């Protein structure tokens, strides 16, 4: 029994479709060159010294006390942040799905889940320092504590938890909504109290999902560069250590070995999350809830939970508000009135703000449509078509999700600064705008692909088959059927890519050359120098840009998106 004839025929059919073949070839080249190759070169560089194959470089790196420290630091932070984020996320998700809350509280939830999306990664670190640091508004002026230090372990943990818990909240909310209320009603009916229902029904069903949320946050925390950079102080994590190894010690080979260590950790976590927990989550929580859930109205439950969530939400919002307000004070920590726009004007007059915004804006604007289109094409190929290289394309684009930006940055330095395999080939793109755009694309590709795949899975496969059957080739099917049906997903992918690019820092900070000024890099620089007011002014404008982009997208989707009616039908 051999499946050779069908394989040969499928190949022949594929070859009859030049657009499709071309697309696949281009995709494979892109993914290999800009995701696989930089990671491979890191591995090669760290085991291949002047005298052949060696583990000396690893040995040297692993013997460094500060690197050992960084590993334990990173894991400690990641572990705690994972647990805290999952817990806070669960609280929010539970209250939203199970408890009757006032409209105001519901609004607060929305804002809280939205804020981390539109703000650059280190905004919370900035406001943490400004509120609770030595000259902090709350510590110094409200509580009269003059020697509080926010730098270090707890600073990172708090800031990362606040940054990442909304992700857990959104994930867990989706899962809780999928729990069939009749399961819990059955338990109630048999005499279980509300607490018992939660511990014996809801929680066990949710457990794989919670594990999933924990690991996703764990990976994000390990990969995070910006927050530990600003608020870590002398508490170095892997991402910052690698960065310093390159920018401070000029030890590119050592940094490559370090990057391999960091990558190994995240890949392991990712593998567990993707292949074990995700499958388990899907197995326990399939299907849709059959009907609406009776919300908890019992005041003894709703009041404390609502209060707790509102407090947390208010705190997060306060943290974010601190940034624009901080940019208006004449001197943070010493002089609060009169409010002034001088920092904002200094951004443009003294610090080349216009160029920074233009560079960031233009580069992100170029990479966003590329990312959105690429991720839609990948999703289409992965969900709707079958061909040999499909597994490769799917695996590599998902792999990019597990690669920390810093690792990718080091990989690009090693991989392209001397050309491909240090041969000088393609050396030209190193330091150019092209490589920045490519990094933006690669960094946003996994999120876009993921949302594209889930959007496409909801479309009946036979719709595309029917178009194909009617005589349309792959390109026609994609343009006239697939793309119009996932227009919303495409538009939001476009904006997400834009926002992610314009707020990105971890990989880009290693690759940017003086000819380009990027906002995030500027903010990082000013925050490092302690010029918080200028950093805040930059960050405020950046938040306004990203928020404007999101608003514009919603407006677009309302007027040009797939009509709601069609969606309900699918």
């Amino acid at each position, binding site marked *: 029994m051999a499946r050779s004839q069908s394989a040969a*025929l499928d190949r022949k*059919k594929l070859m*009859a479709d030049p657009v499709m073949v071309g697309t696949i070839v281009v995709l494979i080249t892109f993914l290999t060159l800009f995701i696989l190759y930089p990671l491979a070169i890191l591995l090669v560089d760290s085991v291949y010294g002047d005298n052949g194959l060696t583990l000396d470089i690893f040995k040297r790196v692993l013997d460094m006390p500060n690197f050992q420290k960084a590993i334990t630091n990173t894991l400690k932070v990641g572990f705690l942040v994972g647990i805290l984020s999952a817990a806070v996320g669960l609280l929010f998700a539970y209250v939203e799905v199970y408890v009757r809350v006032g409209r105001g509280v519901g609004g607060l939830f929305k804002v809280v889940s939205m804020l981390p999306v539109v703000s650059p990664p280190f905004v919370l670190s900035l406001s943490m320092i400004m509120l609770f640091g030595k000259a902090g508004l709350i510590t110094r002026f409200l509580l009269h504590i003059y020697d509080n230090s926010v730098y270090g372990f707890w600073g990172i943990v708090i800031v990362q938890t606040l940054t990442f818990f909304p992700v857990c909240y959104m994930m867990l909310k989706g899962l809780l909504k999928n729990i069939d209320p009749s399961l819990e009603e059955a338990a109630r009916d048999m005499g279980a109290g509300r607490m018992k229902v939660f511990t014996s029904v809801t929680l066990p069903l949710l457990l794989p999902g919670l594990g999933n949320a924990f690991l996703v946050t764990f990976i994000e925390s390990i990969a995070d560069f910006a927050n530990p950079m600003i608020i870590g102080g002398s508490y170095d994590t892997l991402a910052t250590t690698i960065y310093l190894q390159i920018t401070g010690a000029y030890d590119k080979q050592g940094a490559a070995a370090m990057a391999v260590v960091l990558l190994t950790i995240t890949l392991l976590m990712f593998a567990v999350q993707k292949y074990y927990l995700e499958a388990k989550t899907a197995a326990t929580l399939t299907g849709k809830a059959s009907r609406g859930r009776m919300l908890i109205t019992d005041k003894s439950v709703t009041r404390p939970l609502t209060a707790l969530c509102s407090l947390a939400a208010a705190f997060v919002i306060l943290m974010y508000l601190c940034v624009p307000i901080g940019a208006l004070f004449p001197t943070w920590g010493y002089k609060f009135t009169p409010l002034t726009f001088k920092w904002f004007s200094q951004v443009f007059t003294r610090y080349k703000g216009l160029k920074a915004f233009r560079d960031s804006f233009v580069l992100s604007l170029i990479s966003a449509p590329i990312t959105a289109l690429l991720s839609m094409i990948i999703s289409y190929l992965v969900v709707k078509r079958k061909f040999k290289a499909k597994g490769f394309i799917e695996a590599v684009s998902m792999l990019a999700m597990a690669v920390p930006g810093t690792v990718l940055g080091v990989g690009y330095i090693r991989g392209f600064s001397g050309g491909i395999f240090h041969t000088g080939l393609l050396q030209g793109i190193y330091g150019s705008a092209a490589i920045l755009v490519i990094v933006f694309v690669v960094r946003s590709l996994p999120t876009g692909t993921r949302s594209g795949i889930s959007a496409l899975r909801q479309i*009946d496969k036979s719709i595309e088959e*029917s178009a*194909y*059957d009617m005589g349309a080739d792959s390109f026609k099917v994609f343009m006239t059927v697939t793309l119009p049906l996932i227009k919303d997903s495409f538009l939001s992918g476009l904006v997400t890519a834009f926002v992610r690019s314009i707020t990105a820092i971890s990989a880009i900070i290693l690759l940017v050359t003086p000819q380009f000024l990027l906002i995030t890099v500027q903010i990082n620089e000013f925050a490092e120098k302690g010029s918080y007011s200028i950093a805040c002014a930059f960050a405020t404008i950046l938040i306004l840009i990203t928020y404007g982009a999101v608003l514009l997208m919603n407006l677009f989707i309302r007027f040009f998106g797939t009509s709601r009616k*069609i969606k309900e039908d699918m």
Partner: protein
Amino acid sequence: MSKIKKGVRLDHISKIYQDPKTGKDFYAVKDVSLDIEPGSFVTLLGPSGCGKTTTLRMIAGFESPDEGEIYLGDEAINALTPNKRDTAMVFQSYALLPHYNVFDNVAYGLKLRKVSKEEIRRRVLNILDLVELNGMEGRMTNQLSGGQQQRVALARALVIEPSVLLFDEPLSNLDAKLRVSMRTEIRRIQQEVGITAIYVTHDQSEAMALSDHIIIMNGGVIAQMGTPQDIYYHPDSEFVADFIGEANFLRGTMTGMEGGHAVLEIEGSRTLVPPKDGMQPGGTYTAVLRPESAVLAESGGLPCKVVLSCFMGSYQNYHVTVGDTLVKLTDYNPKNKRIYQVGETCSLVFDPESVHIL
């Protein structure tokens, strides 16, 4: 339609799939050979997993066969992609393009073929007329009922004037009454257009009502093919007899011949059945008895006992036991007939010509 009708020929077609659980290869379709006459209506009928849909999808080009060759007319089409094949498929889920209205859905295939605007308009309106959807061309597809959506799907397939029309369980999403009226519609349109049609279903009454020929598949192979009458009256196997209509199986030993009939001893009683080539006295044979071809009487047939007697309106439903064998009967038009009650003993009477020996 002005086009020359084409037949379809499957020459020793097989398709191998991998079992996702065990990782082992198995034949989803095995050595299927068919010759479908131009202009005829052929149904692939079988339980789920019998390979009927896979066969249809191989004809459409969505799947590639592992053995054998598929011919459309005289042309071998194995290596052609679906968009290059002169076939059109009507899908189970209708698969209408949700972002187009009725007109644009039907016009889609014509636009791809670069037909002129006026010509498209003329042909689309013509075909919508044929499927009785005139005046609906501006509607979005989600404003249509299931039956109307299915008509659009049919119109869309017909309008490109394919050589062969393929149906993948097109009526299974409709309610029972609509299913019946749509299948008459499909038959009417197919005959009016004179197109070759291949239809996949697991519903035997649909297959009977529609087809010139029925091909029954089981476990990836063809179990039997023939006209509906052929298959109903002369099934080759218990599987076919049971799948098409209801069937009772009476096992007996042949004892001899009597006046041109074979004598079968069933559960200790003699009964006459039509003779079959190669029948030998002493051999065991299975007689297929349709529920409607026997009646209950006081005497004169196989002694039996009533275990279920149930009034169903148009018929009285009986379950009786002949020895250890359960026999199901439908006695039509039971009004003014003697109704046997549960527990009564009586006689199972049938005409020798109405049974079929396997």
